[in-house]
């Protein structure tokens, strides 16, 4: 997924090969991750696609099914991975992930601690941020979940950047070997305040901690716990509003009925052509209209950040 291996790096010269992880794009809300195997097929409502037809094409290609349907083959990125990964837990999405990466000031070479691993959505982006010389140590108390995440990271070529360990961070804290060596710590735990004293010991001077909690009561409790050895405690909520666009025909002189932004441009066109035949030509213009999509994610969680106070 990451271009650490120069031979895997996406470029004009790179073509899809056997064993590649490919994101099959149907629509912006319908994608799948596929490991390419030459005897295998991919099937969806548009028909059957043979993997062997994909080999040798560049990423970004449009490929056809036996019935003439098409999909696009995309090179995987952490952002696309977040959209296709299998949900074993509630996951973090792009707005929270990007905010956390910037706020925690994660750059190549950093050592980052994370708990819980969950489905590995954030972990994948953390790995990109610390690559090639840094490392992400991620902990989850659920053994099966940790194993599945480890397999995912291996499959995505991230094993050299991520270490997954089964450990109850709330109960046991982070391993003492990381004492004073973490650049940043990320907590996504039901009772994060239990892990905060340990997180404080792990962080380097001036290092930043982030705790993600869906409920305000958790935030309240966490902020109390952070009082003792953290400073700059700040809580945020980040959301994304998406927009849809539409090309709309409008009557030039506003005559006749209805709003110029009417939702039936096709009907209007028919009516206009009819009028044209009568010699009564109305001036029309087209405009690109934009409005927020009608549904959006209303809440993910609160992000609480704190900086380890200098002694």
């Amino acid at each position, binding site marked *: 997924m990451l*271009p*650490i291996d*120069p*031979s895997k790096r*996406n*470029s*004009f*010269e790179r*073509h899809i090969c056997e064993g590649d992880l490919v994101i099959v*794009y149907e629509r*912006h809300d319908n994608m799948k991750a596929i490991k390419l195997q030459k005897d295998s097929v991919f099937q969806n409502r548009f028909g059957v696609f043979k993997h062997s037809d994909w080999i*040798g*094409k*560049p*990423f*970004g290609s*449009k490929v056809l099914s036996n019935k003439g349907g098409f999909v696009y083959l995309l*090179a995987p990125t*952490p*952002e696309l991975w977040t959209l296709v990964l299998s949900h074993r837990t509630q996951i973090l999405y*792009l*707005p929270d*992930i*990007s905010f956390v*990466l*910037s*706020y925690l*000031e994660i750059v*190549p*070479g950093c050592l980052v601690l994370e708990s819980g691993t969950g489905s590995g959505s954030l972990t994948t*982006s953390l790995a*990109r941020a610390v*690559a*090639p*010389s*840094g490392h992400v140590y991620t902990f989850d108390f659920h053994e099966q979940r940790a194993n599945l995440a480890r397999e995912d990271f291996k499959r995505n070529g991230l094993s050299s950047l991520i270490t997954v360990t089964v450990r109850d961070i709330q109960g046991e804290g982070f391993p003492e070997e990381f004492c004073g060596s973490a650049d940043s710590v990320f907590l996504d735990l039901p009772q994060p305040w239990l892990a905060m004293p340990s997180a404080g010991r792990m962080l380097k001077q*001036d290092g930043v901690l982030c705790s993600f909690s869906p409920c305000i009561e958790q*935030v*309240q409790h966490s*902020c*109390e716990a*952070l*009082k003792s050895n953290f*400073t700059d405690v700040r*809580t945020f*909520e*980040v*959301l*994304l*509003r*998406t*927009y849809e*666009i539409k*090309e709309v025909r409008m009557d030039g002189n506003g005559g006749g009925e209805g709003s110029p932004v009417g939702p039936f441009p096709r009907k209007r066109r028919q009516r206009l052509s009819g009028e044209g035949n009568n010699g009564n030509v109305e001036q029309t213009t087209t405009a*690109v209209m*934009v409005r927020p999509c009608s549904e959006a994610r209303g809440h993910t969680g*609160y992000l609480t950040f704190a900086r380890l*106070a*200098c*002694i």
Partner: protein
Amino acid sequence: MAEEGGGHQVEEALRPPNPRTTWEGCSVLLDINDGDRLVFARLSPAASLKIGNKKCFLSPLIGCPYGSLFRVDTGPDGPHLTRISSSSAPSHDNCMQESDDGQSIDELKDNRSLIDNNTAQSLSSNDIDAMKREGATGDEIVEALIANSSTFGKKTAFSQEKYKLKKQKKHAPKVLLRRPSTRSICETYFKKHPARIGFLRMDTLSLLLSMANVGAYSDVLVVDMVGGLLTGAIAERLGGIGYTCSTYFRSMPYPSDIVRMFNFSSEICSRIIQAPFSDLCSSQNLDNENSKSHENTQSSEMQSQTEDSLLTESASKSLIALSEDPVVLEGDYMPDCRHENNTSTGCKSANSGRKVPPELVKLWNERGFSSLIVAAPELELGSLIQDLLPLLSYSAPFAIYHQFLQPLATCMHRLQTSRMAINLQISEPWLREYQVLPSRTHPMMQMSACGGYILSGIRICSSEACNGNN
């Protein structure tokens, strides 16, 4: 000079990716009184800063950990900065101390008897000046003000804290030493000079970086008309591995002063390239690109080696050139801060004012850029994007920022029609900060209502090129 430079590189190489302490010549962000004033400075023995009406030298800050807190003290030699432990100082954040019984007592208190007639404080400004002459510290003055306030005892614990903080800011200013990073630099500009960074909010900037898959080993193409903030943010994420190619559409590169606020190593600086757009698309017809066979990766590796040595050379030249510049900092922030003659100061792109190395252009033409970020409020986006997208490798993500929505909508429509990209989406980030205090948790009373808009998408391979290639 050459020896000094070498010594610096050794020092630089030992520095961790996120250095935790300051050094002579480094750039710092000084946060005075919890964000009331934010100043970028470069630490040198001669650098000074005026706080209130006192001129303080910044030399005590050299060698201190980032995150250290300083107090302005007045000694026999005049005012100076003294480091204090941060636990002894209250701050504006959510850690506000509350006495154990504060809450229960608070319930009985309110402001019904508070009359605003300026008689509550019995200390006059003359009294305070006298105390100062006698050498009282700022904290002692604050204590005296509290002791002489007839209403302080009647206030709730919360408003007592507010009162104390207000007086502290005036009489005992505190300076917090912050590390300049993409986050702190963006937050500072957004708060103090938003127009200079095109009103690009921190969460929006973060999204741009993620959406464009910025990470080590990428070659990121950028149009940065937001003062260099975007270029700096990308270079920080690349950590000196891969290239930030900042392209421009006029005779001169766009200003990029903000890049110098970061403490970039010469390695990272050497990976920032400024290139006029015409140079980037000079030598190729892009749709024929992949019909070229990828015969010898070996020779291209050799090329990249020569090109590396070439860059280091030009980088060191530009650093020497830079050391002749007298002042690097924002003049209006700190007119009295001189940028001393020091080779490690600031960062200019490797080829500043020079032609882009042709080897590099060739490499980018062969590979394609791995992503594109645009923040160009003054350019017409539609044709701009159609010119830039062919420079990206297929399946490369891109993200375009604009302070206004309409240009992005028009651009998106144009991209949809031209079938150059998929996964097109316009999004607007929304960021709300909360006050979290016992029984007093709520969103902040003031928030930024607009962080701008982003059009993101993925470049695709036009069907002719794909079929021709097979």
